[in-house]
């Protein structure tokens, strides 16, 4: 046993008597900010969290977290316009995280491994009727079933899926994927009755002794555009064309086809027609910048040889030619006619100028109110003005995308659940957004986005094979690891490592860290060195 030098050597932990935390004027606290991707996601997915588990290689857990909000990851990984990626903070660093491609990987993983949803542990005995088996209705049914309610869906189409089946071409969403994800919802005990249109909703509710109804009527009617016709030029609607291609796999149509519109449906139709051998040309009254269609979809369309006539309206149609009026944009960006005309050879016109919902049966419900063409709903619970009747999807105000419909279905289900308990559903306030300026990105290494392989261009114009392929497991993990974990701890140990006072305790995997305020002097190094911006210094009350 050695004799210890006086005072310079002491027993262990003797300095713990000195509570240096009392010197502190600033205190570190954890802040929980919502990552911009999560905030943006219309389906309210907890993207940052499922990316974390995907990056760890725990795909099932990632998938389970993902499907807490969205039961269609394999479909979403294909058709979602992934606006989350445009908000991704990684875009300030190199390129946004390929969230959509990882979602698809997880969705496909779950299908390959036959993962199923858990059945509710408790049946509430409440019955809910859902009208429409599109994304809004199916999402509502899924979430209602999770709450333990009995759910029956009535769908007027021959098969469930709504616009996912009748509006989205096969080359973007193979039907085997759609069917498999719908089957998984049915496996939870949701029943779907197809091929029947409900004309009297109130009678249906009463006869079936339903406690609540969720309306999920999609925009299945093409908007009409009046085009003066001389000789009968072939004028069709986009939805009819897509539906016919979907059900028959082909359509009898002329070679030179003008697709009139600038939205995603116009692009879907044009690309579909290209695949059956036609030569579509999109006619759009504004320019590319103003086009509402997804940029990626449009890029693909152009690559596939689809032509576009910008700043043009169809003023008239004859048997084999269209009268095109040139437009120009005014200072507000709105197209104005110029009085200049030209001829465009075309044997048919397909109208893709917007879609409407068939709301006739809804209008019959006494007390239900509308705002323009949308059903009026409570912004939180999505309940209509008629108690017990809720609405989601295209028929209410909001974006008309599959993802938005899924998000609305979720909220409608929560609204119903609260209603059935005699309460009212209020959405929780969102945390502040995690901004790139709040983060310390020095710690992230450069890692460019992984590009998903695509079907060869030459093959795209002749088959309806899926264009976009998925990521390999290795690439998906890499992509998930590119997540900056904005505003949320990823347990990188930086704070733990840099604290000069060893005043940060590690709580174990998944549990994060805690500050030991007895010894934290409030130097702020942890906050400065937290890559995620998860730590904030707040003044002590002195």
């Amino acid at each position: 046993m050695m004799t210890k030098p006086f005072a310079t050597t002491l027993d262990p932990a003797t300095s713990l008597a000195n509570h240096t935390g009392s010197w502190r004027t600033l205190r570190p606290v954890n802040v929980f900010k919502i990552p911009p991707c999560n905030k943006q996601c219309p389906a309210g997915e907890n993207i940052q969290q499922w990316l974390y588990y995907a990056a760890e290689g725990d795909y099932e857990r990632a998938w389970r977290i993902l499907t807490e909000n969205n039961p269609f990851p394999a479909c979403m990984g294909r058709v979602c316009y992934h606006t989350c990626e445009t908000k991704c903070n990684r875009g300030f660093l190199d390129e946004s995280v390929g969230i959509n491609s990882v979602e698809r990987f997880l969705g496909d993983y779950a299908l390959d491994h036959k993962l199923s949803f858990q059945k509710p542990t408790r049946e509430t005995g409440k019955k809910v009727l859902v009208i429409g088996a599109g994304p809004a209705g199916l999402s509502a049914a899924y979430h209602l079933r999770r709450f333990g309610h009995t759910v029956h869906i009535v769908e007027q189409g021959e098969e469930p899926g709504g616009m996912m089946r009748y509006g989205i071409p096969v080359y973007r969403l193979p039907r085997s994927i759609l069917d498999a994800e719908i089957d998984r919802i049915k496996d939870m005990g949701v029943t779907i009755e197809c091929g029947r249109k409900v004309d009297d909703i109130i009678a249906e509710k009463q006869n079936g002794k339903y406690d609540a109804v969720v309306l999920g009527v999609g925009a299945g009617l093409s908007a009409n555009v009046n085009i003066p016709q001389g000789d009968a030029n072939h004028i069709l609607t986009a939805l009819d064309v897509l539906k016919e291609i979907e059900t028959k796999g082909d359509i009898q149509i002329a070679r030179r086809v003008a697709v009139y519109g600038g939205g995603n449906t116009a692009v879907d139709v044009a690309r579909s027609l290209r695949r059956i051998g036609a030569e579509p040309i999109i006619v759009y009254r504004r320019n590319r910048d103003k086009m509402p269609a997804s940029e990626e979809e449009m890029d693909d369309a152009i690559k596939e040889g689809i032509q576009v006539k910008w700043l043009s309206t169809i003023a008239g149609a004859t048997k084999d030619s269209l009268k095109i009026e040139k437009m120009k944009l005014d200072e507000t960006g709105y197209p104005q006619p110029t009085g200049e005309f030209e001829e465009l050879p075309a044997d048919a016109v397909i109208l893709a100028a917007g879609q409407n919902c068939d709301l006739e049966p809804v209008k019959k419900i006494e007390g239900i109110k509308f705002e323009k063409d949308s059903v009026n709903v409570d912004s939180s619970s999505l309940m209509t003005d008629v108690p017990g009747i809720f609405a989601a999807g295209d028929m209410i105000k909001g974006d008309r995308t599959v993802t938005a419909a899924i998000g609305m279905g979720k909220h409608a289900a929560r609204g119903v659940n609260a209603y059935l308990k005699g309460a009212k559903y209020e959405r929780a306030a969102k945390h502040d957004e995690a901004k790139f300026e709040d983060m310390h990105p020095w710690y992230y290494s450069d890692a460019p986005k992984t590009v998903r392989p695509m079907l060869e261009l030459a093959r795209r114009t002749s088959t309806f094979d899926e264009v976009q392929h998925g990521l390999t497991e290795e690439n998906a993990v890499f992509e998930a690891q590119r997540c900056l974990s904005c505003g949320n701890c990823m347990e990188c140990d930086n704070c733990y490592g840099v604290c000069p006072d060893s005043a940060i305790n590690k709580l174990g995997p998944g549990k994060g860290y805690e500050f030991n305020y007895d010894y934290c002097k409030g130097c702020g190094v942890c906050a400065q060195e937290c890559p995620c911006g998860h730590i904030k210094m707040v003044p002590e009350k002195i």
Partner: protein
Amino acid sequence: MDNNQKGLEQIEGSLGVAKAVALARPGVVCAYPISPQTHIVENVGKFVKGGALKNCEFLNVESEFSAMSVAIGSSAGGARTYTATASQGLLYMVEGIYNASGLGLPIVMTVASRAIGAPINIWNDHSDSLSQRDSGWLQLFCESNQDAVDTHIMAFKIAETVGLPVMVCMDGFVLTHAFERLQLPSQEQVDAFLPEYQPREFLDPKEPISMGAMVDPDAFTEVRFLQQRKMVKALDVIEKVTKEYREITGSKSGGLLDCYNCDGADLKLIILGSTVGTAKDAIDELQAQGNKVGIISLKSFRPFPYEALRAAIGDTKNVVVVERAFSFGARGIIAPEVERACKGMGTHISTALCGLGGRAIYGTTIKDVVAYAQAGKFQEEFTWFDINSAVLNRYLKDSEGITLPDGPLAESQLCESVRKVLA
């Protein structure tokens, strides 16, 4: 080959020191390169990599601060530890330097003395090493490369016996880069002299201790008193270790100080470092002319050997300290210590400031100092001895309208030149 010639090598001083360090079998060597220290650690690094120095961890660090931090860690962990630095590098590690001595860690560090910037200057003087005189380290100065080789080996034993770190100060370039004949002791000799390191205390997870934790006003003065006791004890240890080393190796190096030609000298020069060698040659020439001047080579600056120096000066009344650094706003750094040593003896002590920033001190410089002293011209305590007034006047004449006389300038001439401008 007789025994005396065994181990005799014609090598660069830095290589000699590296070999000496390797003979001491350090467990950890860490350093950051800075001229003129670089060749020493480069060579130690080669020995480790090449396998000549076994059981030694050579750590590359990113700064002198890290070098000292690593040295503290490894020494606290129970390893014999060596590092080396110079000039700005020494200053950069100062916080660690004080911690090493406060913790009583027997680290050995070479300071290849070099001027401190600004303006930047890479040549030798003693402003770096003397700036650390209050750091609690022992500071041993070497007058030759042979002295440096031997002092490094002795330094480990002194440090480990006393329980304090040791700086071995050798003049940058003048010694580190000079090739000369060096007598290196054999490994057997060194092993007999310096046994395997047995740390008196070290960090051991099985028996945890807390080193350097906060000591409050209740005990801080006492901690410092105990540190000072170690310094005093070191005076004795240095002499004992030197004696032991000399007995084993036949070396003449080390000690608190070394007297040359001192018997009966009526003028004595006190010198630190490599200037001693130049001075000895000059003194020999003067001796041949019947002029008796003694040289006291001050080896140990910290602890300062007051008693030994008082005895070495004896009844000589005329003493000049040749200093290669000074204290801004004050005067010489060494002369006041000599004054303390000679208190009450009636000795006249003055500083001849020479050799700043690598200005060469020639034999003629030493002879001039002697002549100046013997003519009684060191009237004042402090004289800028080898200053070149022509260089100064080129600037001062235009800027302030004054000129300074040629030759050594006493402090009062400097003061007067300032007053002249103010008036």
